[in-house]
Each structure stands twice: as C-alpha cells, then as structure tokens.
C-alpha cells in the first residue's frame, strides 16, 4: 500500500469518527442540525472526492449515494428521523468496512459478497420516502428501517477492527515536534561540548547539569506528545450505547465530562476494551427496562455518565449508571452456586467484600445469556487488563440507585515507581503499585517466622496467614549460604486479589524506573513484565507480580478463607499493639491490625480545610487526628527554619468497613503484645492495657469500629 492510500485511510477513519459523533448528536438534538449535517456531509464528500482520485470505484459509488442523500438533508428537503439516522449509520458502517478491507488487502474487494447495491437502494429509498412532512414517512420508510435491527450488534465489533491503522499512527502538534527537535539539537550540542572538554575540565559539572535538564525537558515533551485526550475514546460510545439500547430495549442517554483529560496513548489503548466491556455491562445489566424504571419512580430514560479526571498522579475514569444497582444477596448466591465461596463464608462477608466477588474469574450475574453480555468473560477480564498497566478498579453500588465503576490508571506507562530488590545475586524491580508493606525477619527469628502446612509455607502477619513465596527458589536461582545471611526481607504484594509475601535477600533503593519491553522469547517466560536500566547502569528485570503469584500457586480465593480464620484468632485476649507517644510522656497504643503503614510526611504536605488537618495520601484524602497537638509543635519548629516532618500512622484496613484516617504522633515506640485491662470509665473512648508491664492507653472507639472481633474483648 502506498503512502497516499495509507494517509487516505487514516484521514477517512477520522472523518467517519467525526460523522459518528455528529450522527448520534443529531438524533438527540435535531434542532441544531444544520451545522451537524454540514459536518457529516463534508466527511462523506471528502471520502468521495479522494476515492475518485485514487480509483476505488466501489467506495466512490457508495459515498456518492450517501452524499446525495446528505445533500437533500442539508438543503432541508428531508426531515431527521430515526430511520434516516439508522440508514446513515449503516452507510458509515459500509464505508468503514470497505476502508478496513482496503487496509487489510490493498483492494476494495470485488467478490459477490462485497456488493453495496442493497445499501445504495436503501439510501435512495430514504431520499424519496421521508419528505419534510415526517408523518408521511409511513410504510416505505419503516419497512426499510425494520429490516436491519438484527444486524445492529455487528458494527460494534467492526469499529474495533477499524481502529487498527489509527492505533499505529499519531497526530502530533507541529509545535511539540519543533520543541522536540530543538531539544535534540541542544542534546547534541551538549554532547559535543562534553566530548571536547573531557571529564577533567572545570566546567564538566555544569555540562552534566545541562545534560540533565535537557534530558528532563526532552522526556517531558515526548510524554506530552504521547498524551491523547480521553475524548477520543469516549467518542465511540454514543453509537455503541445507541445500538445496544435498541437491541436490549432500553432507553439510555450518555453524558460525558472531562473529555480533554490527557492520557498516554498506549494506556488509552489498554483501557479501551475494559471500558467498552463495562459500558456494555452497564446498558445490559445496569439500566432497567423503561417500564421497570417508571415503576420504581425513575425517568424511563436511564443515564450513563462517563467522567475522566486527574487525581494525584493518576487518571480516574468513572462510569456511573442510575440503574438497578447490584443486589448483594444475588451476588453471594451466585458465588456460592459457582463454588467460589462456601455458604459459611458468604454469611460473614461485608458488602464491600461481596462486591469484590464480581471480579473473580467465571462470575457473571446476568440471569440470561444475551447477545450482548453474559458470555463468561466478565469483570475479571476488566480488572486483569487494567491491573496489567498498573491501574486498579473499584466498584460501588447501591440497590435501586445505581452502580459506579472506577478505573484508576497511571498517567503514563513508561515510568513507574518501583522498589529494587536483590535475590540470588540478581536485581529485580517490584512495582510500587503492588507493594503493600515490607517485613524484615532477622536471622535469629528466621526459624520461627515461617510456619509450614505440608509443603506450603506461611507467615503470620498480624495474625493473618500469608502464603510465602521464595523468589530465589521460584526462579531457580542460587540460594545464599547460611553463613553470611543476615536474615531476609519479605515484600507483601497484592495483585489481582492475591496477597502473598515474596521473600528476597535484600532491599535496594526505591527508584523511578523506565520500563523497557522484553523480546518475545523472554516475554514467553511469563514472569517478567519488562526490564529497566538502574541508576547504577545495571539491568534489572521487572517482576510481574500477578504472574508470579499464579506461578507459585497463590490463588485469589485463598484470601477470603484466611480472613474467615482471622476472625477467630483475634478474639484472643492478648493482642498486638503499636505503642507510640502522642501526648507528652503518655504511652498510647493502637491495635496493630488497624495500622496499615507508618509514614514520615513533610509538614508542607499537610493541608488544612475548615481548621482540620488533611493529608493527600495515594489518591485519598485522609483526615488527620492530632490528639497530642503535635502539629502545632512542629509548626513552631518549622518557623525556626528547620526541615520538619511529622510521623503519621495510616489507620484503617482493607476489607474493613471504615474510612482510612491518619494519626499524627510524636514518635513510635514499639510493637508488642499486651493484655487489656478493665475499661477506664473516666477516659471514655480510651481504655487501659498492660504492655510490657507498663500502663498504656488504647484507643477503644477506634478499635471497635475497625475490628468487629474486638467487641468481645471490650
């Protein structure tokens, strides 16, 4: 295929995308049709003009028929009817199909199946049959209109193929390209200077600094060039929703916001399928039939809202419907029926945990298998795809009110924060997004720390059993000899619902790594998602956390079973407490299982709203509790010009019904087991405990909310 044809295809696809948007808009707002029709006419006209010139006769003929109809529409001879829109949409599909064929084979197809006469006739019929007075449109038009409803699902798959060429090409602002060129020029200049002056030269540090800034600028510019507005992705949905709504007998309106939010092109591609799937789900299962909606006191037309926005270093894409919501009982019943959980487990599950079941493979709540969904591929695929690019999926649902699905993806794929670890003499990078916490096991505790059940090893992390995977053994690396070991580190990782402890020899620095793809042969191993060059110049392989879990046999369901066990354990009177100091000289403690992490936060990061201190933490807004007025003291210290950071305990836990919060403390003292004493009536929300023979206050109110099992003790 020559360049001219390639360009023509890319351009025409863009034109058709525009036409698609305009058509759906035209149907909802026939009032301002003039401009929209003009736009559609131009798209078809351009295709017709260029095809004639390139010699694609079939395409030209079809485009000509369409142009004729659109011409009549533009001159106001025709009225906008649903049949007309359907006809034009089919024209668009026809054009798109031919373009796809040209792209794939280089010719527009001359076989018997590639005949457009029916479509051309239909367009001609529309031209005659729907005059300005729409009422006359009677028999002829509706006869034409009814015929193709069965085929309405097909275009969805077709538009998937059509994107093939545009996936590989990208339109860049010339301005950005010029800037890139300038920066490359500067890069070359700096290199020349460096070569001439040599390492010994006095201005070498300055040159190194320049090189650094030029590289940073260049990186930023390239990133910018890769950014695409999310609207490009959203643009495909109105048509899809319209077709789906017709096949499923629903009335659905789709609303957008934040289309201009930029996202890396490769990420945009990566979330295309999951999002399409989710939209399909929302129309088919989410939004009820019009009659049902009216009965429930809602407007007959359902509403689907797609929102994109930035939130602390990631882009959130939110899909909300005002449909039936997800009935927890049905989810649990289905999960039990499919054997994903036992009835006893289902009993004890919180709403949040139950919703997570939807993401398990082989789960679908659709009562019947329809043409649209319920074919066994479900939300697990959505989650797997999003997690593959380092994102996460959240689901919220209220029965009768609607469901909200949130896809959270990083701004860019290319650079990810990671922790570099060493195992068996090699370096590996673990993506921070999967890292939950780190545990150090010193040599003297090694024997006791790992417990065994048959061949599998487990670690008791705050009374939860965690499957342990030895990275060096899993990869068949040399294990270190007993002599020089100082103990080991365990990285607690979580991906696709699996949580496990990965044992490594050593932790190196956390680094922002640039992800490089691996060759096909190495990808096939399935354990590494890429490689990266470390600051030291060495290469490190990036571990695919989910695949490693799968290889080691860690299953997502195990997590649920463990949780059920944990409830029994925590009922014991002796509890692990994190002891810290918040008020002067007073020892205070929190049950260890409500503390997720201890963070050292720079004072400047703490913000205030309505007099309350707040902290932006991993995309969440945490309320800070400051009982000991530590912040005030720190402010004073900062006033004196010192660099101050506050110690914040991040409290609240996964799978627990509670908002996370932060607690500002003066310093953390110890972790140890303690015995709870009688409740101290005077102190209200606090109670006393004996920790290492010393009296300690325990936040009671907090513990009750966080761990249900606590009630028995308190």
């Amino acid at each position, binding site marked *: 295929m020559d360049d001219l044809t390639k360009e023509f295809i890319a351009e025409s696809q863009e034109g058709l995308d525009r036409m698609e948007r305009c058509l759906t808009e035209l149907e909802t707002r026939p009032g301002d049709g003039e401009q929209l029709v003009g736009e559609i006419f131009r798209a078809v006209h351009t295709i017709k003009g260029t095809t004639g010139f390139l010699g694609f006769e079939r395409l030209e003929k079809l485009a000509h028929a369409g142009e004729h109809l659109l011409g009549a529409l533009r001159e106001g001879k025709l009225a906008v009817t649903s049949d007309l829109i359907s006809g034009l949409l089919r024209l668009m599909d026809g054009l798109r199909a031919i373009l796809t064929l040209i792209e794939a084979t280089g010719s527009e197809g001359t076989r018997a199946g590639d005949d457009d006469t029916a479509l051309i006739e239909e367009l001609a019929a529309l031209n005659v049959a729907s005059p300005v007075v729409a009422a006359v449109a009677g028999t002829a038009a509706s006869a034409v209109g009814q015929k193709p409803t069965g085929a309405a699902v097909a275009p969805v798959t077709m538009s998937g193929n059509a994107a093939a060429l545009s996936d590989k090409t990208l339109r860049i602002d010339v301005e950005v390209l010029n800037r890139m060129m300038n920066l490359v020029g500067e890069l070359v200049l700096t290199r020349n200077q460096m070569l001439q002056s040599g390492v010994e030269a006095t201005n070498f540090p300055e040159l190194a600094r320049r090189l650094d800034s030029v590289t940073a600028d260049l990186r930023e510019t390239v990133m910018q060039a890769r950014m695409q507005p999310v609207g490009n992705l959203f643009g495909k949905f109105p048509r899809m929703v319209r077709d789906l709504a017709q096949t499923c007998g629903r009335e659905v309106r789709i609303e957008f916001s934040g289309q201009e939010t930029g996202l890396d092109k490769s990420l945009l591609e990566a979330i295309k399928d999951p999002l399409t799937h989710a939209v399909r789900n929302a129309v088919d299962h989410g939004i009820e039939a019009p009659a049902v909606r009216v009965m429930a006191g809602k407007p007959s037309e359902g509403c689907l809202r797609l929102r994109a926005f930035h939130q602390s270093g990631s882009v959130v894409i939110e899909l909300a419907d005002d449909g039936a919501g997800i009935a927890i009982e049905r989810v649990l019943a289905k999960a039990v029926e499919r054997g994903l959980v036992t009835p006893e487990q289902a009993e004890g599950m919180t709403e949040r945990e139950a919703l997570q079941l939807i993401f398990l493979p082989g789960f679908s709540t659709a009562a019947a298998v329809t043409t649209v969904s319920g074919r066994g591929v479900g939300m697990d695929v959505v989650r797997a795809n999003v997690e593959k690019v380092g994102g996460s999926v959240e689901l919220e649902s209220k029965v009768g009110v609607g469901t909200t699905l949130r896809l959270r993806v990083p701004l860019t794929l290319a650079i990810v924060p990671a922790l570099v670890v060493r195992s*068996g*003499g*090699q370096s590996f990078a673990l993506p921070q997004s999967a890292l939950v916490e780190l545990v150090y096991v010193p040599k003297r505790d090694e024997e006791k720390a790992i417990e065994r059940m048959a061949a599998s090893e487990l670690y008791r992390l705050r009374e939860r059993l965690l499957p342990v995977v030895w990275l060096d053994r899993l*990869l*068949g*690396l*040399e294990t270190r000899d007993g002599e020089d070991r100082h103990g080991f580190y365990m990285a607690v990782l979580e991906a696709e619902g699996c949580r496990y402890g990965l044992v490594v020899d050593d932790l190196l620095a956390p680094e922002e790594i640039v992800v*490089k*793809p*691996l*060759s*096909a*042969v*190495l990808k*096939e*191993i399935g*354990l*590494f998602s*890429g*490689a990266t*060059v470390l600051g030291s*110049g*060495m*290469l*490190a*392989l990036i571990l695919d956390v989910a695949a490693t879990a799968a290889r080691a046999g860690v299953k997502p369901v195990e997590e649920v079973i463990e949780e059920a066990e944990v409830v029994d354990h925590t009922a014991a009177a002796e509890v692990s407490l994190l002891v810290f100091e918040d008020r002067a000289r007073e020892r205070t403690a929190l049950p260890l299982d409500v503390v997720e992490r201890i963070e050292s936060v720079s004072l400047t990061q703490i913000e205030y709203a309505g007099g309350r201190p707040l902290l932006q933490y991993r995309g969440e807004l945490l309320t800070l509790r400051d009982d000991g007025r530590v912040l005030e003291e720190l402010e004073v210290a900062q006033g004196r010009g010192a660099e101050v950071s506050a110690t914040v305990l991040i409290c609240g836990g996964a799978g627990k019904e509670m908002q996370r919060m932060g607690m500002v403390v003066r310093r953390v003292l110890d972790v140890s087991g303690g015995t709870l004493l009688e409740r101290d009536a005077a102190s209200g929300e606090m109670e006393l405990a004996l920790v290492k023979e010393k009296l300690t206050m325990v936040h009671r109110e907090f513990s009750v909310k966080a761990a249900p099992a606590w009630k028995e003790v308190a």
Partner: protein
Amino acid sequence: MKILERDAVSEILNEDDAVSLCSMFAGSESYGIDTRKIREVLGYRDLQRVPMAPAFIGGVVPYRGEVLTTVDFRALLGMGEYTGVNCVLVLEDEVGEERFGLVVDAVGGVVMVNRNMLEANPCTLEPRAKWLFDGAYKMPTGLMVQLDPQRLRPSRLAEAGLFKCRSNGEQA
C-alpha cells in the same frame, strides 16, 4: 558465467562474488558472519542473566535505550561456560524488526572470501550443528564456519525446538 579461478587474489577482486565476513571464535573453532548483518560489535558486556529463560539465552544487556536479548553461542553448541572475557555482537535481521546480541569468546577481524568457495555442510554433521551452520570456508588457518544470523534469532531458535533443553538452571 565466470570460470572459477584458482588464484586467491583474483577471487577476491571479483566483486560480485566477494563477501566480507567478520570472524569470531568460540572454543577452538572460528566462525564467520556477513558483515552487512552486523550492526555493531560491543565488546565485553556484563550480561544480566534471565532466570527461567531457555538455555541458549545468554542474558540481557542495555543497548541504545533498549534491552537487548543475547544468544549465548557456546550454549547453542553445547559447550561449557566461557571463563574469559566475552564479546557481544549486535545483529539485526533483514527487516530490522528483531535486534539481538550474540555472545562469543572473541571477535577477530574482517575477512574477504569468495562466495563460490563455500563448502556445504557435511552429511555427518549432528542435527543441531546442521541447523546452525551454513557451510564452511577453507581458510589457510583452518575451516571457518559460516553462520546465518537469521537462524540465530532468539525467536527462531525457540521455535526450532532443537535447543529447548534448559541448562541446569543454576548458572549465575
């Protein structure tokens, strides 16, 4: 049709048939690869091993902003690990889609040979070697085996199945 001449000098002068090969060594034997297929000779590189990879993968090295997969030529021939300083070459297939490295013991220099002097593989060659080798040139110093870079491509080697066996997996 040109008549084969016995004189080595005129053979090389005959431009149509002259091929420039880059000579390299693995073990006691010498091998040659068409210089046009070689992108760069990197010299010694510290290879980062890839656990669980097929035995013929020597490891990965950073190369011009990419991660280059290398093929360990000694492993391909079933020879033990080289203790000396290795040498990495960067090869590229014709369409330029797949770039990969080849790890050999040492690289010699460029040798001009006459295409017509190539002797076919002997029928007694073991299957692996038969698959890898592309005939040999009779050089004054001994035979120089010609290698086809196309066949050394990691993906091709993986497909071939002849080299599947994983080395003891414990090399580090």
